[in-house]
C-alpha cells in the first residue's frame, strides 16, 4: 500500500465530497443516456429483495387482518343490513344479466359471430410499491418461468389495474393506470365514443380527447378500447366523475390503493410495446409455461 503523508491524505479526504458530487451529476447523465441501465439495475435489486418482502408479507398480512377484523366487529350490524339490501339489488341484476347473456348468445349464434380467443392468465401477489414518490406502480412476485411478458395486462377482481412494464427473473412491475406516463385508449360505454385516459399520479386519471358533440356523463362506465392493439375491448376501468372545476376524471373500479393479488392476462397484443433490444446470448428454448390456467 502506498503511504501518503498526512497532508496528502487530508487533502484527498477533503476532495472526496466534491468529486463524488460531480460523479453523481455524471450518473444523472448516464441514467439519461442509457435508461435501460437503470431499469436493469432496479429489476436486479427487486429480484434480490423480493424473497424478503414475500416472507414479510405473511406476518404483516396477519396483523392487517387482525386490525381490520376488530374494526369490522364494531359495525357488524350496520354492515349486515347494508349487505342484505345490496344482495337483494344484486340478485335482481343477476337475473337481468343472465337473461341478457342468454339473449346475447342467441344473437351471436344467429350472426355466426367469431368468438374472441380465450386469454390465458396467471395470478400474482403484489409485494411492494414500485413507483416511489413520483410514479405509480407495483411490484409483483412472479417466481421463475412465470411466462409473464412486457405489455401484458393486469386486472384485479373489479377492473383494469395497469400494464406490465418490466419483467425480472422473479418479479414484474406493473405501471398503474394512475401513473403520469399512462395513456389508455378507452370507450365511453353509453355513447361508444373513444377517448384517452391520462394518468396524473393522482387517485383519478383524467379523461381527454373525446370527439366533438359527445360529453361524458357523470357516472358513465368507461371501458378499454381495442384501438392501437394494446388492450382488448370492453375491460371495465371505472366510472366518469366530474371534479368541482369541471374536469372529467375516471374513478377506477380497481382498488388501486390496496392491491393484493392481480391477474395478468396475455391477450397476445403488442400494440405499444417497444421492441426488446437484441439479446447477445445464444437463443435458448422457451421454458414451458407453468402456472397458466
Amino acid at each position, binding site marked *: 500500500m502506498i503511504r501518503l503523508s498526512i497532508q496528502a491524505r487530508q487533502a484527498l479526504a477533503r476532495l*472526496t*465530497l466534491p468529486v*463524488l*458530487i460531480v*460523479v*453523481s*451529476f*455524471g*450518473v*444523472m*447523465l*448516464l*441514467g*439519461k443516456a442509457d435508461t435501460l*441501465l*437503470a431499469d436493469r*439495475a*432496479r429489476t436486479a*435489486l427487486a429480484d434480490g*429483495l423480493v424473497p*424478503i*418482502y414475500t416472507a*414479510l*408479507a405473511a406476518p*404483516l398480512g396477519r396483523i*392487517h387482518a387482525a386490525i381490520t377484523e376488530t374494526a369490522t366487529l364494531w359495525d357488524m350490524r350496520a354492515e349486515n343490513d347494508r349487505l342484505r339490501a345490496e344482495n337483494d339489488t344484486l340478485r335482481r341484476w343477476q337475473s337481468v344479466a343472465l337473461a341478457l347473456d342468454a339473449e346475447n348468445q342467441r344473437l351471436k349464434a344467429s350472426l355466426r359471430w367469431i368468438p374472441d380467443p380465450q386469454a390465458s392468465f396467471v395470478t400474482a401477489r*403484489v*409485494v*411492494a*410499491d*414500485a*413507483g*416511489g*414518490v*413520483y*410514479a405509480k*406502480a407495483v411490484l409483483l412476485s412472479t417466481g421463475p418461468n412465470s411466462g409473464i411478458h412486457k405489455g401484458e395486462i393486469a386486472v384485479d377482481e373489479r377492473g383494469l389495474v395497469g400494464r406490465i412494464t418490466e419483467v425480472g427473473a422473479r418479479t414484474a412491475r406493473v405501471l398503474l393506470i394512475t401513473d*403520469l406516463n399512462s395513456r389508455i385508449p378507452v370507450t365511453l360505454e353509453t355513447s361508444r365514443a373513444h377517448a384517452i385516459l391520462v394518468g396524473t*399520479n*393522482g387517485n383519478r386519471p383524467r379523461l381527454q380527447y373525446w370527439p366533438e358533440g359527445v360529453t361524458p356523463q357523470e357516472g358513465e362506465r368507461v371501458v378499454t378500447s381495442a384501438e392501437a392493439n394494446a388492450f382488448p375491448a370492453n375491460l371495465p376501468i371505472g366510472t366518469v366523475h366530474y371534479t368541482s372545476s369541471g374536469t372529467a376524471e375516471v374513478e377506477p373500479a380497481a382498488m388501486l*390503493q*390496496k392491491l393484493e393479488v392481480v391477474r395478468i392476462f396475455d391477450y397476445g397484443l403488442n400494440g405499444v410495446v417497444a421492441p426488446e433490444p437484441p439479446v447477445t446470448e445464444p437463443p435458448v428454448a422457451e421454458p414451458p409455461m407453468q402456472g397458466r390456467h
Partner: protein
Amino acid sequence: MAHIDRRPGIRPRPSFGRRLDIAARACFPGCITILLMLLTQAPLGLPGQAASLPAVALGCVWFWSLFRPAALPPPIVFLIGLLMDLLGYLPLGVGAFTLLAVHGVALAMRRSLSRRGGGWIWIVFAGVAAAASLSIWLMVMLLTFRLLSPYPAIFIAVLAAAIFPLLAVPFASAHRSIANPERA
C-alpha cells in the same frame, strides 16, 4: 484506526476480535441506514409509504454526518443515495447528489450545532429536509421533462421532520453505546 492513533502511549496491536469489534461499530451507521431504507419498502400497506424512503434516508444521513462523520464517509453516502434512487424509482444520481449535499451541510454546521441542543439540530434538519426534497422535486422534473405536483415534495419534507426525533433518540443512545468505537 485514526482515533486510536490520536491517543498517546504504546499499546499492543489489537487482536482480531477487537479489530472485528471496532469494524462492526464503525459499520453501524451505514448498515442501520440501509436496513431502515429497505424496511420502508416492506409491504406495510401504509398510505403515503413511498415518501418514507427519502424521509428516513435524509434523517439517517443528517444524524450520522453530524455525530459520526468518520463512520459515514462520502463514498458510503453516495452508495446510500444510489440505493435510494434504485429503491425509490428516482432518476439515477438524484438521491446520491441530494444526500451528498446534506452530508456536506452537516459537516459544515457540525461545530456550530454541537454547541447547541438537540432541538436546534431538529429545527435545522427541518430546513435542510425541505431544501433537499425541493431539490429532488426540481431535479426529477428537469430529468423527466415533466411538470410534477409539488405535494409529494412537501409531504416528504414534513414527514422527514416529523420522524427525525423517532430516529434520533435511539440513534443517540446507539451513538454512545454500540456505535462507539472507543468502547471496543
